């Protein structure tokens, strides 16, 4: 205490200048954080506000910045007009199915690529990566024909195959370096014990990789939950449509004079983002490591 105060007193002039500078610096920092938070959060605030306001309060000039009347009526109207629960359930099946299938397929392939050194392993790995660059939209026409012939349009399994295939290469990209960094001795010891490959994968490799696998399950769930294009084309019935499809149908349908139902669109948007927000808040640390591991090698 005494030392620091005597130190601070030494050069009086430079000290004051420094203090003003650091004060300015603090202020700038706080301002920047404030602007950043405003830019990120305001659209959510606006959607939430619109979803809880009665319809007539949305269409005023100037718009209301604060909630004056709280109502859940928009959610009620929405549930009366579209099969909301059904879409929610479909989204849940679609997203969890795609997440599980992609992580399992990617895990098996990544193990082969990382551990069983074989000729052409690098080629297969690069092949997976290059296939990410093929735009999904360019595959829809032949897939539509194929699915038509196989009677897989409007089936969960058809949708899950498409979506899990789309996210498998990313998953492999993240998993291969992860498996490579696990010391191989553990597995060698297991092979000497005579554990066969499936048992060894299940009892030894999977437990070591649990955090990575859980992270990828969450990431792939979020990505699939948010997917629009595949369900838009391949889910056209009430029994398979996802929330994203229900939402855009409401958003792009032609309107007859009355303007778009922004109160309903906001309410449905809320329903779609709340599960994702819960996941993000619970698993933020895992998600951050998962997202950055792939990009920062």
């Amino acid at each position: 205490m005494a030392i620091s105060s005597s130190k601070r007193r030494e050069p009086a002039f430079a000290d004051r200048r420094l203090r003003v500078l650091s004060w300015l610096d603090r202020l700038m920092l706080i301002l920047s954080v404030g602007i950043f938070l405003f830019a990120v959060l305001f659209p959510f605030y606006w959607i939430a506000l619109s979803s809880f306001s009665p319809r007539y309060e949305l269409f005023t000039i100037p718009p209301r910045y604060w909630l004056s009347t709280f109502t859940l009526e928009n959610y009620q109207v929405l549930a009366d007009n579209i099969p909301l629960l059904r879409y929610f359930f479909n989204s849940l099946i679609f997203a969890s199915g795609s997440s599980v299938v992609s992580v399992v397929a990617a895990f098996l392939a990544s193990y082969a690529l990382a551990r069983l050194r074989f000729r052409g392993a690098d080629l297969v790995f690069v092949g997976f990566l290059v296939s990410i660059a093929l735009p999904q939209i360019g595959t829809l026409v032949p897939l539509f024909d194929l699915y038509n012939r196989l009677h897989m349009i409007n089936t969960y399994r058809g949708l899950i195959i498409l979506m899990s295939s789309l996210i498998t290469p990313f998953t492999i990209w993240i998993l291969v370096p992860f498996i490579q960094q696990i010391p191989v001795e553990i597995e060698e010891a297991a092979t000497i014990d005579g554990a066969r490959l499936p048992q060894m994968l299940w009892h030894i490799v999977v437990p070591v990789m649990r955090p990575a696998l859980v992270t990828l399950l969450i990431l792939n769930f979020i990505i699939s939950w948010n997917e629009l294009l595949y369900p838009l084309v391949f889910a056209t019935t009430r029994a398979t449509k996802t929330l994203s499809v229900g939402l855009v149908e409401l958003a792009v349908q032609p309107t007859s004079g009355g303007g778009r139902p922004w109160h309903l669109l906001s309410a449905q948007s809320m329903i779609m983002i709340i599960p994702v927000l819960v996941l993000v808040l619970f698993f933020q640390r895992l998600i951050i490591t998962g997202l950055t591991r792939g990009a920062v090698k």
Partner: protein
Amino acid sequence: MSHPISDEVRADAALAREAVQERALRRRAGRRKVARRLVTLFLLLLPAVGLRLFTAVYPYLQTIRLSFYEYNPAFPPERFVGFENFERMASDPSVTSSVSFTILFVVVSTMLQLILGLLVALLLNRAFFGRGLVRAINLIPWAIPMVVAAIGFRWMYNAQYGIINDLLRRTLGFTVAWLTNYWSARVAVTATNVWKSTPFLALVFLASLQGVPEELYEAGRVDGTNRLTAFFHITLPLILPQVTTLGLFMLVWQLASFDLIFTMTGGGPGYATQVLAYAIYQVAFTGLNFGYASAISMVLFVVVAIFGTLGVLLYRRVEVIY
């Protein structure tokens, strides 16, 4: 009738025979091991490779073929038309303008995302109260669906009741019919796209920033460098490889953007905000012109290939320099 010598020879021969047999056995076992390894390899790779072959490789080959056909799924027989689809495209404004807007949209978006992403990362890397929470909030735009972002912004851009015009009216005294004017619609969709993806880039850059050793900055401080020089001479060179990789990834990835345009503008006004992916979707599933849609897909694929190659070349250069 046995000679001692021939006995020995016989014993030797028996030993040799045994050795040969054993070697053969071992070789057979080895071969069996190799075969088992191959089967294991095949089984492990099968699900992932199978999925990709079924939903990416096969359809792409079909798309290439179909681009030379006229094909309406409602009137099945396909008709070979050679390069007709491609000739038709040259004079189709919905295609030509989507090519130019796709490139403009992707290049401008990526540049803004890189710059803003770096700025946000630098901000989130500083010490301040509640930094952990702010970093978590930074995840939100990445995590929400693009369709929700598009709807939220479309509502905020609303010419009459939108919040953006209200703020403009209060501060600057004018309003813009955002989504009904040619250039303002282009600005609006690009801004929404930047808003949605910048936090993801910031997150990755933040991780790279945390990898820059603190001693370098301390050394810089001893030499009396200020923060700006430190950024350009210490930070940027060290994270440049990651910045280029991510920039390349965003360029190629965003060439296929669909959700935003579909939900926010439907390509309008006119063809102002039409991107290739949206044009393909419209031609295929509204116009039921599968052949023509495949031909446009080929254009998109060529654009992706060009950008990808340029990007990889650029990446190599950066790697050599640093």
